[in-house]
């Protein structure tokens, strides 16, 4: 594909050699049957450098998975997308590329996906071996059992379970089968959408460590997760999403350690962990189809004031009227 003519947004018209993925002002909205819109993702921008792991965290239903689907062109027909997402050295715009390009060049080859519900992602009527064999053959050209065994081993999928069908696997093993499929193509960009759901702590650590190991050299990892412990373990940076917007994007070390998150929502999310206060943030996230005009978190925020009637801009990595930021 040629670079996009103009996405009409952001400073990044081209991608320099130091970026695997450059997302600018990505917005996704769904048109509903009654003519209304659900704004699942609003003006999200971030860069992913080679070798970097960015963790995207937030409550369920905040738009995290829609963002991943948008990057892979897997959105349903009633979705419309704005902004740009430039991939790799040639700056292929994932949002503008057509289905042929995405199917033949991008998915599995330049961008691998570790899916959210492996039980739904795997073909139910075929064994894991059969699915791995096909993927290895299509993506690497290798035939024979050695490649399949190596692919299974990379995701710690036990060899004696290869002949099982997805329904014969525990949730954790199904997740490892899906992870094995995603790792086959050695894609420079790896999108992991809740890769550790349903796994026990040991397996979470092994799975994310394997994903992290995959980010050597030129590869980058976008880890979408609600598991803050998993994010804290491997992420270089953390992006917190709320009601479709990034409200904070910062260094992982400072986020999980000192000084801690700056946005009130991010602070509440971290404090809800059982090893911390174990208290939920009051209320629920707003409906993405009926977002308030101002700050979407204001209704649940103990610091809300008149200023929150306006949407706060993301300045120095945080979008809140009540956080002092050092203006660069």
């Amino acid at each position, binding site marked *: 594909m040629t670079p996009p003519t103009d996405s009409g947004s952001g400073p990044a018209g081209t991608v320099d050699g130091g970026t695997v993925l450059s997302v600018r002002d990505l917005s996704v909205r769904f048109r509903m049957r009654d003519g209304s819109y659900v704004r699942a993702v609003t003006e999200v921008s971030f860069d992913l450098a080679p070798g970097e792991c960015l963790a995207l965290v937030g409550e369920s239903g905040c738009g995290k998975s829609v963002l991943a689907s948008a990057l892979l062109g897997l959105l349903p027909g009633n979705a419309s997308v704005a902004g740009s997402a430039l991939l790799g050295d040639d700056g292929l715009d994932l949002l503008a590329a057509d289905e042929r390009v995405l199917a033949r060049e991008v998915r599995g080859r330049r961008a691998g996906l570790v899916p959210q519900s492996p039980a739904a992602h795997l073909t139910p009527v075929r064994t894991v071996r059969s699915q791995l064999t096909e993927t290895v053959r299509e993506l690497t050209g290798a035939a024979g059992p050695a490649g399949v065994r190596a692919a299974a081993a990379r995701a710690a999928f036990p060899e004696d379970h290869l002949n099982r069908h997805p329904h014969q696997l525990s949730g954790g093993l199904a997740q490892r089968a899906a992870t094995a499929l995603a790792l086959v193509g050695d894609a420079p960009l790896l999108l992991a959408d809740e890769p550790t759901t349903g796994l026990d702590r040991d397996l979470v650590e092994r799975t994310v460590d394997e994903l992290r190991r995959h980010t050597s050299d030129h590869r980058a990892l976008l880890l979408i997760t609600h598991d803050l412990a998993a994010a804290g373990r491997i992420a270089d940076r953390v992006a917190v999403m709320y009601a479709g917007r990034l409200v904070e994007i910062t260094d992982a070390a400072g986020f999980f350690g000192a000084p801690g998150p700056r946005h009130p929502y991010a602070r*509440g999310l971290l404090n809800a962990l059982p090893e911390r206060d174990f208290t939920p943030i009051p209320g629920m996230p707003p409906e993405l189809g009926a977002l308030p005009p101002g700050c979407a978190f204001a209704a649940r925020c103990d610091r809300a004031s008149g200023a929150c009637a306006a949407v706060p801009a993301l300045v120095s990595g945080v979008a809140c009227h009540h956080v002092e930021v050092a203006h660069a």
Partner: protein
Amino acid sequence: MLELRSVTAGYDRRAPVVRDVSLTVSAGEAVGLQGPSGCGKSTLARVAALLHRPDSGQVVLDGETARGWRHRAPRAQRTAFGVVFQQPRLSADPRLPLAELIAEPLRSNGRPTDGVRELAETVGLGADLLGRRPHEVSDGQLQRACLARALALRPRWLVCDEMTAMLDASTTAALVGVVEAYRRESGAGLLAVGHDRVLLERWCDRTVGWAELTSR
């Protein structure tokens, strides 16, 4: 008191996944059962909730031995359990709006369904969400509905099988809060199955590791 006595269970009699396991949940007690993926803890939870017939062993509810499983369990025993599963998408009929989903246990037991709105409120679901079908809500919202459904018949025991594994920290804390509020008010017992030791130890009166259960 809920007693599991020398339960052996699985899906192939030659290779049971649970071997000779005993576990007791005293009245009003919250017991956490912690173990790695695929160890058989969910199978044991299903046996405890009378959803899976063990190959051998007994389930005893307040002194009464269970004789039937699933639809063959006597109604009084079957309805003594509220169960919440790990994956709300797989445990919710996609055709049912949330209000119907929550009302289902009431309806199938011939009870009035006028308390649905109140039930939904206790799990933090507003009236605006009750008309939606599962695909129109988030995982967290759907799991809230599944918890409301489990509480609908006011069970004596709650079995939560990885109830929060799919959920973010805030929704996890909120749902655990709902379960605990119900238990305080009703005196119900709890068997919480999970892999997250930190969570179970914070939540339950005592937490048993799968390895300790099976090594006896």
